[in-house]
């Protein structure tokens, strides 16, 4: 009579366990999880692009023009607002251009901040935007200082003043 003492009854269980372990290993090794901490990478890339764009807009095209396109946009627009198309066209051209045939799809909302010396307050004027912020976006903020000889609302003098061009920039 053959006794069953010492028999390995659970060979199926052992095999299944090993298969499960191997599967778990493969799954864990192959999965890439986009963690909340990784969002800073795309934020940083957008911030870099926006900062570069504003810097290039604030660079004069040649040595004889004397002023940059960004200066001209702020200087030439009306004192109560800056709703002209120049900033929109130029800024979107800079931030959406890529080396291939495809373009990026970034959106922005820009404003100009200056110091009102009479009231000793900091005032902001909307510059322009290509989409309104609804609150659900996750924009980054980029800025550029511009020196412009102009009278702003609430100020008495036409004088050189530093104004801060501030842009909120995001990708849908």
């Amino acid at each position, binding site marked *: 009579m053959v006794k069953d003492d*010492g*028999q*390995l*009854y*659970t060979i199926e*269980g*052992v095999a299944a*366990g*090993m298969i499960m*372990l191997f599967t778990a*290993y493969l799954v*864990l*090794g*192959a*999965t*890439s*999880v*986009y*963690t909340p*901490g*990784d969002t800073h*990478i795309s934020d*940083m*890339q957008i911030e*870099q*692009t926006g900062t*570069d*764009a504003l*810097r*290039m807009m604030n*660079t*004069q*095209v*040649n*040595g*004889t023009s*004397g002023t940059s396109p960004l200066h001209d946009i702020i200087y030439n627009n009306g004192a109560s607002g800056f709703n002209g198309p120049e900033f929109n066209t130029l800024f979107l*051209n*800079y*931030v959406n*251009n*890529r*080396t*291939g045939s495809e373009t990026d799809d970034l959106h922005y909302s820009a404003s100009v901040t200056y110091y009102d010396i009479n009231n000793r307050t900091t005032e902001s004027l909307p510059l322009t935007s290509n989409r309104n912020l609804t609150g659900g976006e996750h924009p980054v903020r980029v800025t550029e200082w511009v020196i412009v000889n102009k009278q702003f609302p609430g100020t008495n003098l036409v004088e050189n003043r530093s104004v801060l061009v501030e842009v909120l920039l995001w990708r849908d």
Partner: protein
Amino acid sequence: MTDDAGNLSIDFLAGFTIFMVALIYVATLIPGLFIGLQSRTIDYDAVAYRTGVILAEDPGQPSNPSWEAPYTDPSTILRFGLALSKDTPNILSTAKINSFFCSTEFVYPNDYQSRAVFGDYPYQFNISLQIAGDNYTRSVGDILPEGYGYSRRVVKIKETSNATIGLAQIQQYYWSNETNLTYAPETHIFSIYLNCTNLAENGPDYNNPAYQINPIDPLGEGVVINLTDLDQTTCESTASQKFHPPSGCNGGSQPTINLSSISIYQSRPLPEGTGRAWSQIIPSTNHATYEVYIDGGTTPYNSTESTEFPVNVTNNVSLFIFPASLNSWSFGDPNSDLNITMQFELSHGDWFLNSTKNQPDGAFEYNYDPANVSQPYLRDGVMEVAVW
């Protein structure tokens, strides 16, 4: 009767052993297992960002003379950088761009990994640059895979200056007449004068390198000179009648025009302010230092070592002096003056093209006057770096 109390089941032994082996194995692999739980592109993005910063904001090393200069030993290049200078981030040099993307000058990937991408890991990469107005994209590297680290830089590219001298300028400055001559000569000399001190120190916008015309290192820029309308400056051409002396023409046919030589002269101040001494530099006539194009030709006339002047000219001559050539001819001395002289021989005496009336040194001055020279300007561009 066999008593089985105290025995270990072989099932238990087998299961426990496998479990322990698996546990130890998994425990040792935990660091590797959790690599997949963070974004794979974190490292690649960081490397792409670093490479983008190096290329857009750094002039490279060595910087004076610059790494792209033809007389810089390639083995001494430590770092590529495309910026004009460290004071002009995001403004790139055309000469550096041409050198960086030249597949015959540097070998992909080794030259680029050790001088632009860096790191112990042999990253693969693709670097591309699109300049506004160009219908092609410059790039170096592999075809992009599905996932990669990425950096994009918005840049401007400095276009160097050029001068076009045509009928309007020749009429305005009476360059068809030679000083103190009462007869129409057969030999005519037209010179272009570069005051390196003035160019290096008196540029626009507080001498910003982005707008300088600076032939001396580290910028070591080249220049382009176009002489046009040459068939209209002789006495026989209708357009030139009003600025030629009426009695000066020999009459008859339009003379044959030959460009007989191109000479370079360099001067330095003599000690103790006793003037300047000019000496002739004899450049090679091949296209290593400059190219000369005749009548709109698409290949340079001096494309081979055996090129010799004279060459027949009908309408125009274009002289492309490469970056670093002017610096070589001036021996890197910022106090140098340079005189580039083109000599023409006509088949018979005529009024044609002569700069001896001009000051200084009887030459057309290549300077910051926009009426004389089309000044440097900046073109938009975008550069992308992909690393994987």
